């Protein structure tokens, strides 16, 4: 009695999901590369991140087209409908993550080969935490695992706190090091971008919870 009667539709949903994972992968790589380019002052890598962003944009477009087509042609309901709704939302979040990688890379270009005022320690730590959240959010999305999604979102507060402290500290350097004002401001921007990575990861996690329960959750308080 319970044979599957919608194998074509299910096949299309699978294709959509693999596109989404590909997109998430691209964004994750872009963010990691942006971060590496900052630590190593690797302008070439930073430019590569900036130039590759259109790959992520194209994937978002493709996912939106596919999801809208399935909504129009397959009249999905209940979880099928939520799945497509979530595909649209999550791909927009991931597209923003791609933009953030570009923004970080642009700051790297702005700093150029000017020697870092001091060794970067806290920024990579904060970055690590944000990346961990992103990986958890994407894994939770892949596995449709709301528990992991909630775990991911719980870390958002820590990243917010780190952001506040770091920016405050950075700004105290300006009076003694006026020549480094541009670098310090760029690094403060980078902190802000990292904080946004955590926010978008939390949004992805919220969509995972919504997909599973049909209820909107604000994990981002």
């Amino acid at each position, binding site marked *: 009695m*319970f044979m599957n009667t919608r194998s074509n539709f299910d096949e299309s949903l699978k294709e959509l999901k693999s596109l989404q994972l590909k997109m998430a992968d691209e964004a994750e790589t872009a963010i990691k590369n942006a971060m590496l380019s900052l630590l190593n002052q690797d302008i070439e890598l930073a430019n590569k991140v900036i130039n590759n962003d259109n790959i992520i944009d194209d994937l978002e477009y493709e996912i939106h087209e596919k999801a809208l087509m399935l909504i129009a042609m397959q009249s999905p309901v209940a979880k099928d409908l939520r799945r497509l709704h979530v595909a649209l939302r999550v791909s927009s979040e991931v597209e923003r993550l791609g933009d953030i990688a570009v923004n970080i890379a642009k700051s790297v270009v702005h700093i150029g080969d000017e020697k870092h005022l001091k060794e970067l320690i806290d920024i990579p730590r904060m970055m690590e935490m944000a990346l961990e959240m992103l990986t958890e959010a994407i894994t939770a999305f892949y596995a449709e695992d709301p528990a992991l999604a909630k775990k991911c979102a719980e870390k958002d507060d820590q990243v917010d706190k780190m952001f506040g402290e770091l920016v405050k500290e950075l700004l105290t350097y300006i009076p003694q090091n006026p020549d480094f004002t541009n670098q310090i401001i760029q690094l403060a921007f980078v902190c802000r971008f990292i904080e946004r990575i955590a926010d978008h990861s939390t949004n992805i996690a919220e969509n995972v919870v919504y997909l599973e329960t049909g209820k909107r959750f604000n994990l981002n308080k």
Partner: protein
Amino acid sequence: MVTALKERTTMDVTAPSHHNDRLESILSVNNLQIFYGEKRAVNGISMEIEKNSVTALIGPSGCGKSTFLRSINRMNDLIPGSYAKGEIIYEGLNILAEDINVTALRKEIGMVFQKPNPFPKSIYENITHALKFAGIKKKSKLDEIVEESLRNAALWDEVKDRLHSSAYSLSGGQQQRLCIARTIAMKPNVILLDEPASALDPISNAKVEDLIVDLKKDYSIVIVTHNMQQASRISDKTAFFLNGDLIEYDRTEKIFTNPSVEKTEEYISGRFG
């Protein structure tokens, strides 16, 4: 009204007794079981059917939707060996009771079938036939009811110049709307529809759907449909049946966005057959 069902043989079709209190129930079904001889087709279901709203009955073939629908105006009485247990309370009376005046009941609870079944008469007479039996003889009154019910059934403009042609000269979709007009001419309180749009082209289907939504201002409607989009477009509440059981009954938007029961989800998303 309560005693009328037991005694009345003609009814006053000019004085509908519709009220517009939303969410009030018009029918209370309590532990209803319906049998065909030994076989039980409906297994003790209970539900409240709301006044002035559209209730959709969905579920796979053979799950008991039509059986349940027909019991609401005692159409199963016509099937030898069929009987029901439990209650369906309407206007304070159990309509399954022996002493109910079934003819009066069917005037208050009208039914439209899957296949349009006009009488082999003119369009006009299809509507006036039952009215004459109900004691309305005056030509001007009959004309008035014919026009009003054809308008309400969204058919008037298409047939006003050919009221005396045979109903069989109408298209399938027009015949179905004529059957709806014939039912509403009797000013029932409840209209039962068993897959009324299954044989219609998309335009006639859309007209019938619009009509059903319009009708709920004045009537309480129960509709069986196999078309999930139709159920989600027109109904306020949806009941999912499976093997004679009522599996889930809730607001339509809940059923189609986030049903509580796994089987409902599988059925509405087309995942079992």
